[in-house]
């Protein structure tokens, strides 16, 4: 790129920084409510300064089994992610390597699954789970979310494998490698970053999901997202307690997205091309 004046760069960066801070203010506000004493949350007029306290966290832990809620969220999102990768990565590979003229059509079919509005499939699925007795368990959510996510993983991995020249695998096959070996030892390591990006998207989707677990799980299996809604509907729970509880829902996923930002960006880039 040609040289750009320093003044222009400073201007660009300041604007970007200010906009980003504006975008982050509501999040900071949420985090801060969790450290405010209840009487200062409900002060008139609302004020920005407060005496920090951990009371809201004590209340949250007293009212909710936070560890169990987080455990449910972890089980649901890890289960969904693992199953989706297990189904989606081989399928994406097969579609990318197949010479059939239907393979691209199949890939678009998997992308189209993304369009399904939950209500169209969720109600019959709810009845199906009720009939086979899985309703109320983690499994019901994992099974449904895996369907949505494995379709998405298949589509993403299809484009990752498509961008990978098949020469290496062909050489391995000629050298007497099995087909499974060529897939597992040659192709998969080459698209490692794509698989990580897929895993990140699956984790984010199922961790943040609340509509499906709200209707598919019972009290003892509910994840933190659903607990937040229950907490909100209860009269004696303050915004502060809610903010404390929200820490456990937002911080893990935000940290993960920040640490794995490179894969997040790469995954989105891949979705465009």
């Amino acid at each position, binding site marked *: 790129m040609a040289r750009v004046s320093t003044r222009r760069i400073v201007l660009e960066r300041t604007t970007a920084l200010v906009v980003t801070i504006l975008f*982050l203010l509501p999040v900071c506000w949420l985090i801060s409510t969790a450290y405010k004493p209840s009487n200062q949350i409900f002060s008139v007029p609302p004020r920005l300064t407060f005496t920090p306290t951990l009371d809201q966290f004590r209340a949250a832990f007293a009212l909710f089994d936070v560890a169990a809620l987080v455990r449910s969220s972890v089980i649901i999102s890890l289960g969904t992610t693992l199953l989706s990768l297990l189904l989606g990565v081989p399928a994406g590979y097969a579609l990318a390597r197949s010479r059939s003229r239907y393979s691209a059509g199949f890939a678009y079919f998997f992308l189209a699954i993304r369009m399904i509005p939950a209500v169209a499939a969720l109600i019959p699925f709810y009845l199906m789970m009720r009939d086979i007795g899985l309703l109320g368990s983690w499994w019901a959510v994992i099974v449904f979310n895996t369907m949505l996510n494995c379709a998405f993983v298949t589509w993403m991995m299809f484009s990752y494998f498509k961008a990978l020249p098949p020469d290496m695998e062909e050489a391995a096959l000629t050298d007497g490698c099995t087909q499974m070996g060529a897939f597992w030892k040659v192709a998969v390591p080459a698209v490692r970053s794509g698989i990580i990006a897929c895993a990140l998207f699956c984790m984010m989707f199922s961790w943040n999901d609340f509509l499906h677990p709200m209707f598919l799980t019972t009290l003892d299996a509910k994840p933190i997202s659903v607990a937040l809604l229950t907490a909100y509907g209860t009269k004696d729970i303050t915004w502060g307690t809610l903010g404390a509880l929200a820490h456990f829902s937002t911080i893990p996923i935000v940290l993960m997205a920040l640490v794995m930002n490179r894969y997040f960006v790469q995954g989105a880039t891949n979705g*465009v091309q």
Partner: protein
Amino acid sequence: MRTTFSDRRKIFLFLMAAPAVLYVAAVGLWPLAQGIGYSFYKYNLLRPARTQFVGLQNYVDIFADASTRTAILNTFQFTLFSVALQLVLGFALALLLWRDSRFNRIVLAFLLIPSTITPLVVGLIFKAMLGADYGIIGFFLAEAGIGPRTGLLTDASTALWVLILIDCWEWTPLMTLILLAGLKALPGDVLEAGRVDGATGWQRFHMLILPLMLPSIFLALTLRSMDAFRVFDSVFVTTGGGPNDSTNTLMMLGVKEGLQFFNVGFASAVGNVTLLFIALIATGLLLVVRRADVRINGK
């Protein structure tokens, strides 16, 4: 020998794809097909004995009933305005962050936080901030006499617009990310040529960058419209579709009818209509993408 290998290869690839295809068919397509079946019945789980075939009656009801018609219009209004606003804001931010530098990468990582946090929590944040009694924004707006006395989210004339703004807050960062990916993939030599030819900033933008970006723009629009059309979490927690159906959307309607009132027949019809609308929007936008692609790349 050659043919046997190619046959074995075909079988291997078939077996690799089969589990995912079967899974999606069993867990996705089969319920969808059942939903189409249910939609022709008057079927309430609480009164299963009174189930009866009603043909297209459920669909007629969706379009005949004033409150469901409102839900359809609300969904379109929400999708159109929130996605349009996100596009403009997202594009501006993407242009700001285009230059590849450590600073910009870090800013982008933090900018993405609203799109990563739980959508339900987003609803809670804004519900708390906009409340006219104690909310940090709502209180001062009410004091200053701006907007309705009861708060922006509890007034039928403003609630949907507020939800649109909340959606923009949540998803503009993702729009920025997608458009930024498109910007970074632009051919550098073409842009350089524009600069050498002495084009001004604005000329470069609307004569070079914008046309080259059309495929990315439309793809981003497709992805975001599909999601916006299915908006649920933030509406559910902030307004629950009210006041007076003013923020009722198709997803809200379907979920309420199906999973709260157990009106399976009608809710299935709502779900199918939603799916149909989404398919139409996506197809329309993808056709535009293809046309833009042909015009630019000539393929």
